[in-house]
């Protein structure tokens, strides 16, 4: 996937046009300089944040499970570019990137990872369970597949209230095999609910390659028996994600019901911090990193189009590192929750 060249027109308007009939998920959005710079910055923030989280885990500041999003950054950043205020996002436990992309503070996320009172859940949720009413982020769920029904419920609420917001329910290739996913698909199609099902196909569910767990490995077709349209998208190219997102959002907002986007992506790290990842070759990982890296693609484009100099990019790198370093300092210095918090937030 060498970066494809695109002209720099005022892209946002072009991309927001109503969905074309021949939508295939293979479209590349026209990215302006601003789009590429924004995507670069956002993806880099997720990457650096996750690297730091991995480091803090190694130092024992973060405990339990910690699932990093490194490699998959283009998916959530591209999707987010197509949303408007009030659209909801929900995902599983690999959620740090989603929260940063939703605009939740790096300090809040990192302090939750270290279990401190300044964390987004006051330290009570941890890596897998964070929420933000303000940013319309509904978690952060540890039970594989549960967020799919919940995300369908968010869409139900939009339809019930008669607003035109859409709900984005993210889940993995492994989660796509859970029964409640199909129960949800049926209801969503039956009731024409505005939900975008985003299957982040990173090729593995823990140690199980897609082909060992899935009879139908084309996840875009998983809604076929409910007549839910679905498309495969190059989830390593933020422009392809953005184009698919625009059209999917338009589909949902205009009352046509649910849609499925299979994002073909890759996680560079193990499933969680304790996964030695023996089930895939180092070459496979290296090849993805060197040939398809979502951040490198944008970086190359920025330089090639002379939209940014090496120095400009260095400055962005520095800004991002500063945000991450600040969040890590905060997350280590912030006190643990007060003992009285043990008994709060159980019932109203």
């Amino acid at each position: 996937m060498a970066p494809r060249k695109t002209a720099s027109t005022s892209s946002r308007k072009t991309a927001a046009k109503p969905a074309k009939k021949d939508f295939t998920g293979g479209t590349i959005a026209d990215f302006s300089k601003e789009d590429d710079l924004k995507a670069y910055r956002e993806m880099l923030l997720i990457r650096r944040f996750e690297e730091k989280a991995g480091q803090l885990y190694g130092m024992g500041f973060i405990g339990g499970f910690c699932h990093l999003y490194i490699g998959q950054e283009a998916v959530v950043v591209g999707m987010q570019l197509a949303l408007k205020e009030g659209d909801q996002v929900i995902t599983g436990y690999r959620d740090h990137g989603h929260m940063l992309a939703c605009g939740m503070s790096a300090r809040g996320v990192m302090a939750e990872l270290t279990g401190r009172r300044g964390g987004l859940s006051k330290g009570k949720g941890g890596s897998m369970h964070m929420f933000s009413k303000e940013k319309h982020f509904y978690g952060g769920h540890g039970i594989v597949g549960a967020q799919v029904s919940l995300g369908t419920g968010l869409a139900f609420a939009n339809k019930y209230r008669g607003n035109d917001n859409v709900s984005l329910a993210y889940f993995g290739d492994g989660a796509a095999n859970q029964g409640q996913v199909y129960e949800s698909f049926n209801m969503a199609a039956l009731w024409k609910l505005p939900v975008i099902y985003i299957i982040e196909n990173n090729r593995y569910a823990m140690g199980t390659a897609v082909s060992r767990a899935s009879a139908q490995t084309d996840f875009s077709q998983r809604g076929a028996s409910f007549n839910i349209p679905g498309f495969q998208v190059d989830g390593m190219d933020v422009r392809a994600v953005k184009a698919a997102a625009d059209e999917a959002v338009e589909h949902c907002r205009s009352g046509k019901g649910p849609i499925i986007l299979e994002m073909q992506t890759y996680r560079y790290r193990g499933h969680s911090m304790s996964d030695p990842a023996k089930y895939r070759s180092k070459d496979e990982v290296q090849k993805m990193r060197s040939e398809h890296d979502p951040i490198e693609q944008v970086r190359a484009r920025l330089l090639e189009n002379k939209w940014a100099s090496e120095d400009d990019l260095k400055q962005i790198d520095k800004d991002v590192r500063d945000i991450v370093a600040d969040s890590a300092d905060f997350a280590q210095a912030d006190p643990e929750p007060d003992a009285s918090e043990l008994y709060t937030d159980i019932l109203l």
Partner: protein
Amino acid sequence: MPIEILMPALSPTMEEGTLSKWVKNEGDTVKSGDVIAEIETDKATMEVEAVDEGVIGKILIPAGTEGVKVNTAIAVLLQDGESADAMAAPKAAEKQAEAAAPKVEEAEKPTEQGSASAPVPAAPKGEIAADPDIPAGTEMVPTTVREALRDAMAEEMRRDDDVFVMGEEVAEYQGAYKITQGLLQEFGARRVIDTPITEHGFAGVGVGAAMTGLKPIVEFMTFNFAMQAIDQIINSAAKTLYMSGGQMGAPIVFRGPNGAAARVAAQHSQCYAAWYSHIPGLKVVMPYTAADAKGLLKAAIRDPNPVIFLENEILYGQSFDVPKMDDFVLPIGKARVHKKGNDATVVSFGIGMTYAIKAIAELEKDGIDVELIDLRTIRPMDLPTIIESVRKTGRLVVVEEGYPQSSVGTEIATRVMQQAFDYLDAPILTIAGKDVPMPYAANLEKLALPNVGEVVQAVKTVCYK
């Protein structure tokens, strides 16, 4: 400033590891994400990746060093233009010495799984009372709970072709917690079956196969995920024998880690002992020692009924004596007197035993001689053993990690009150986890779990001391 590369913690429960190999050498340039070294944890060989960019200035811990504590500096990374001389050499050398020093306090550790945060007491030092089901003089072999469970399954699979194991990551990955290690290699893919992440579906598939007489062992990666499948477990597995007028049942074992691990928060930390013990048509087993894990898992596999077999991740790495016998099978439904005593009775099971054992050791110092009973099976419950003990001591404390309301402890208290009221010299006390979802923060998690002090206090209270 040169950056110290520290020994990372690479699992929720790792405290130290072996630095097995340096992939990069002094003088090599590294980028973030480059693999710089390999370390071995109890479960796996893991790669250490560079977080920062720079040049490896000095390797502080040579390859092959064992017992390197998490957070020890293992190398120094130089930034742009720095030279190796700029390093804070004395500090580094100090740390190295520290890392190489023998670890005396190791013996105190509960298990390689035991985490710094989970307040799990150390393994028992005192004698375990002899189990009458093990012939005197039998040779004992130190075995981890992990190995004992694996051996039990392997022995039963050798013995009976109808026994098979299925679940997520049980085959090629060798088990998410390595309980099924080696089974795929010995028994092949027909009998060691990786499932998709579809708990409700594969639990039902297992029950259906069991209705024809096969004997599935269904592993849940953890029992938290069995909630997806609980309908098949209760409505299908537990009730078929009754509904069919005895024509067919479900000889199936549902097993996996149950209860709180370390720092995995609300959705991954709960004890299901009381939940399943509510259901007629199920047997519920929750072993503590490796011997019980082995003998009872073998019994569960042979049992013609559905058995819920509740393990615990924190106990997996603990070692206990397991009898060396050709066919070591223990009776389901029988408690084991872990230690004899006269002043008070403590009943516990599973990981609850770790608190109880520490507590009775402390109480002994205060001159209180506790009889400790390991329930082992929650349903059917061995009430006679408990009552016999209460008749002797007149005092009872029950210890468990699960929630306090409608708990195993309250069930025992009710029944003992009904059947041995006249023998009681004090109200029965129950120690349980707190009545809250499991919090993530280390300090709150500690508070949410039972602790040894609570058990000690409860026993003193029932003894009026």
